[in-house]
């Protein structure tokens, strides 16, 4: 596909759907809804905010209630998420495992056309980032993928939806890749297994990070794989009416692990009682629980958390320290 054809394809998509794509707002690349296809930037730069809120909204309704009548609200608009880099496609692939049995996420994914490209972020985060090769495509969730070759694109479809859209647009020269699941034939990532094995060795690391982290939770907001949530009821104006909602939280909030009980120093009992235990919990989720549960790291190496951290906590440095093991 030529650049010209790609622009026409984007125009075609924006005519019929809500299209989300990377564009620049006040100098910062972000994924936003686009109305003018010319504003879309296909670049190796990672948008600061990922696609996350489109598939895992910051707040969503699980069901509406009226007294004891419960009506689930499972719905999604038809939408296109265009221009995702490989780390973000990996994040979608990961979230698809996490929310495999979640009807809300699955409905949204079904109604979303995921379109990726092969430009790899230039910043070298060393962990879990990889260059594009054709054989990784069968392990990524996408509908259409553009492999950049000079000024042209090699086009792949990754689903029947992707094929249908390309056919309807009138482009036939694409190759189909069948999604075979997130894990490669040679098994889970070696780096992930090494980090998992050594995770509990360096106890000093958590004390040090606990002294630096100010628990702002920015890392959890920009992380494309962070998905912790609260569930709460939001009463409506009429008697007995309301919504049960699910909304993002962060494990850095002090109430995250709070339980009922007798307050000590006007603090409710909690199991993650200090910053060190909470930041370890964040890493534990990504590098212990996710590998154990899904054989996947809960990190795609995008480095967004490092970029936004106001006190300069660098995930790459910390993973290196975990790998070094016990501090003598």
């Amino acid at each position: 596909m030529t650049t010209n054809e790609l622009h026409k394809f984007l125009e075609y998509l924006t005519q019929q759907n809500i299209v989300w794509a990377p564009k620049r707002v006040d100098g910062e690349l972000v994924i936003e809804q686009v109305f003018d296809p010319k504003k879309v930037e296909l670049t190796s730069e990672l948008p600061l905010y990922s696609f996350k809120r489109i598939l895992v909204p910051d707040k969503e309704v699980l069901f509406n209630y009226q007294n004891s009548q419960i009506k689930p609200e499972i719905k999604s608009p038809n939408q296109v998420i265009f221009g995702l880099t490989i780390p973000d496609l990996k994040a979608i692939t990961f979230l698809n495992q996490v929310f495999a049995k979640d009807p809300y996420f699955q409905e949204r994914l079904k109604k979303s056309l995921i379109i990726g490209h092969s430009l790899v972020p230039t910043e070298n985060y060393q962990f879990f980032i990889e260059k594009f090769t054709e054989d990784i495509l069968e392990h990524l969730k996408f509908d259409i993928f553009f492999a950049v070759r000079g000024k042209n694109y090699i086009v792949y479809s990754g689903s029947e939806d992707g094929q249908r859209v390309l056919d309807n647009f009138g482009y036939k020269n694409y190759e189909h890749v069948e999604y075979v699941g997130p894990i490669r034939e040679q098994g889970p990532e070696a780096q992930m297994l090494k980090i998992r094995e050594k995770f509990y060795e360096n106890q000093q690391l958590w004390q040090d990070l606990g002294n630096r982290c100010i628990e702002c939770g920015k890392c959890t907001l920009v992380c494309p794989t962070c998905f912790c949530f609260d569930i709460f009821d939001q009463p409506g104006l009429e008697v007995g009416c309301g919504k049960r909602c699910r909304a993002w939280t962060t494990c850095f909030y002090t109430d995250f692990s709070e339980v009922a009980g007798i307050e000590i120093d006007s603090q409710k009992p909690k199991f993650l009682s200090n910053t060190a235990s909470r930041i370890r919990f964040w890493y534990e989720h990504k590098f212990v629980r996710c590998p154990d549960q899904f054989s996947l790291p809960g990190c795609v190496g995008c480095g967004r958390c490092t970029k936004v951290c106001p006190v300069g906590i660098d995930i790459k440095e910390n993973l290196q320290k975990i790998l070094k093991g016990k501090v003598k």
Partner: protein
Amino acid sequence: MLNPYLPKIAKIKKIKPESTDAKLFTLEFVNKSDRADFCFIHGQFLMMGLIGFGEAAFDICSSTVKLDTFELAVRKVGTLTEKLHQLKVDDLVTIRGPFGNGLDPKVYKGKDLLLIGGGCGFITMRSFVADYLANKLPVNKLDVFYGCLNEASLFFKDEYSRWQKKTSLSIALDKPSPKWQGVKGVVTNLFNDSQDFSNTIALIVGPPVMYRFVIDELKKRGMVDSNIYVSLERRMYCGVGVCQHCAIGPYYVCKDGPVFCWQQLKDIPNAI
């Protein structure tokens, strides 16, 4: 696709005050098919909620074999439980679950089972006792240790005489009235040197501070880590191992627990 967030509706059939700040609710699913589907293992829990006020986790404290109704004991400790205490017979609550892993009967089949409950943790033990009294618990012998603050906060006290016909129930009260004839102090005061735990499985449920002390006493009497089970409390929202609130190291209390073998947990920071 099954929606794990949609609760079932249950009707309150009976409310019995249990202690100064606790009530026992007898519940029945409104839908016949929900009644027919309901089954659980000792130690599993339900998410009980009240429309408009959210949900929380409660251990089921009734029989696993007599399932037409089920029972949850609720201590008034927060907004939801306060609202639950205001409910009357025939009011409706929401139920999700049962969730998690209870204590698998294979673990204690043919052995002695020692249940050690502290405070609200004692609630869990009632479902074992109910089945034991009906000859439906495949154990050699059942012993129950209960550590509680005082007489007024004891759970299920009008059932003890019935229990004690078949089981031994030992109670220690931390701050009893002068009239109390039994053991004083914490639950570990119920241990003595004549106890033999060589063929015993223990389940401990109680406040975090209790576990270490009880485990020490059990190990002093020859019990190995792999025969010690603990049931843990955590903040929970989803109940299906996603929301992360109840995670401990590599585990989720809602999915891998709430009953864990101590062997699994002993090296994990912040577990107890």
